[in-house]
């Protein structure tokens, strides 16, 4: 019967279809396996805080690392922005202080390093978060060693070497510059810190907190012109009202100093 041979031929043709499908999928898998170099730290590097395991799972499963790194960064800023009550022996003024620049960001914040590191574990290309974290640790909380640890981690996993990578391989210098500044800070040389971080300030992605720190250090060292330029930049570009208000206030003060003369101003 003709239909039996036709059926057999049809079945063979269909069998070839599924074989071709499997071969194609497998070849594509092999190709991508050889070609794809993950720009992220290996899974073993993820130190997931207990409260964030679900979020990190979602970040990986949905391919939304950047989004969840943003959320971790917001959490970090909220944590750091919360006034810290650290026991009976410490007064409230020892907490995070936005008003007085000299004590800006001081406090213990024991989870700051793991939280900052976790932002980079999820998205190692989040340079602004790395710089913000390191600067806060080194210059506000006076924890230079932790800042160094964070910067070393950031340098280790900063995505570079991928074909076409340009922007973030350039970001390495920012971390290296920050490492130098942390070193100067440890050795008690604020002028050198201000000079070291000056190139980073020109970057549009530079954390405003770092700008404020640079302005403050310049002001303290009597370099009013440089401080005024940085405050003006903060007032013009920052979206944080607290920083903008402070920058305007400082600009007014600096204008007053200029009117009174540099000698009197320097003595302040």
């Amino acid at each position, binding site marked *: *019967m*003709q*239909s039996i041979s*036709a059926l057999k031929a049809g079945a063979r043709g269909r069998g070839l279809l599924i074989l071709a499908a499997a071969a194609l999928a497998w070849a594509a898998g092999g190709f991508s396996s050889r070609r794809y170099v993950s720009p992220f730290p290996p899974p073993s590097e993820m130190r997931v805080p207990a409260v964030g395991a679900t979020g990190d799972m979602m970040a990986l499963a949905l391919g939304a690392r950047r989004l969840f790194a943003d959320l971790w960064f917001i959490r970090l800023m909220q944590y750091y922005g919360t006034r810290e009550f650290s026991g009976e022996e410490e007064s409230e003024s020892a907490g995070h202080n936005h008003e007085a620049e000299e004590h800006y960001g001081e406090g213990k914040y024991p989870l700051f390093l793991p939280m900052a590191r976790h932002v980079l574990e999820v998205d190692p290309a989040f340079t602004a978060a790395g710089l913000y974290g390191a600067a806060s640790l080194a210059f506000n909380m006076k924890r230079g060693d932790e800042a160094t640890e964070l910067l070393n981690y950031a340098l280790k996993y900063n995505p570079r070497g991928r074909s076409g990578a340009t922007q973030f391989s350039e970001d390495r210098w920012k971390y290296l510059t920050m490492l130098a500044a942390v070193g100067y800070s440890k050795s008690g040389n604020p002028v050198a810190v201000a000079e070291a971080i000056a190139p980073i300030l020109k970057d549009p992605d530079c954390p405003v907190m770092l700008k404020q720190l640079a302005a403050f250090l310049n002001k303290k060292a009597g370099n009013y012109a440089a401080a005024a330029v940085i405050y003006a930049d903060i007032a013009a570009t920052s979206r944080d009202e607290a920083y903008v208000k402070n920058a305007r206030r400082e600009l007014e003060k600096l204008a007053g100093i200029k009117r009174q003369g540099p000698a009197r101003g320097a003595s302040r």
Partner: protein
Amino acid sequence: MTACAVSFSGVEKTYKRPRLLGAEYHTAVKDLSFEIPAGEITGLLGLNGAGKTTIMKLITGLLFPTAGQVRVFGQPPSDVAAKARVGFLPELPYFPPQVKPADALEYYGRLSGLSGAELSRAVESSMKKTGLEPHAGKRISEFSKGMLQRLGLGQALLHKPDLLVLDEPVSGLDPLAIHDIRALLAGLNAEGCAIFLSSHSISEVEKLASRVLLMVSGKLAAAVTRAQWESAPGGLEKIFVEAVK
């Protein structure tokens, strides 16, 4: 010798329904052999579950026979050349409610390989033949059951088929719609189109068909010609009742 539009030779169709453990098998038609002559109207009568719709689907290539051979104009039903000569109206056809009848017909015309001016002419002709022209501006959601059935018939006519396969074409229609559709089918047959229609209405089949196949529990119980039922006392109805009892 009359040319053959459809031939069934020892056809069996068994449905397999997967179950938790193994499968359940149901044979819808068995050892079925018959022919539908070209240019004639052949009716298909049977109770529910007799295998009428299975036969229609086997002819249109929607089902594949488990055993035996089905040929449509000498070709397997799944062959593009065979399908190009067949128009099919399933029971209760569905059309997207938001579109206008001409839009639905255009889509099916394109699937039948029509395009450009030929497609426009085919749509216009189908609308005219099925009496849908006055309703051209309406959306399908506004259509009555009778109008939907006309549209279903219209899509089957688009590519001027040599064989029309109609599953319950007058089911649920009002008498006037039935009259119109009957007239339309008679006209198409007069133009040389073979028609194979199934129905629960014996009188309807009796009025149109020149030959009727009687299906009982998946088997062909009898093939009755017009001359046979016209000469029998009690007509086609009595023959049918005796066959299914």
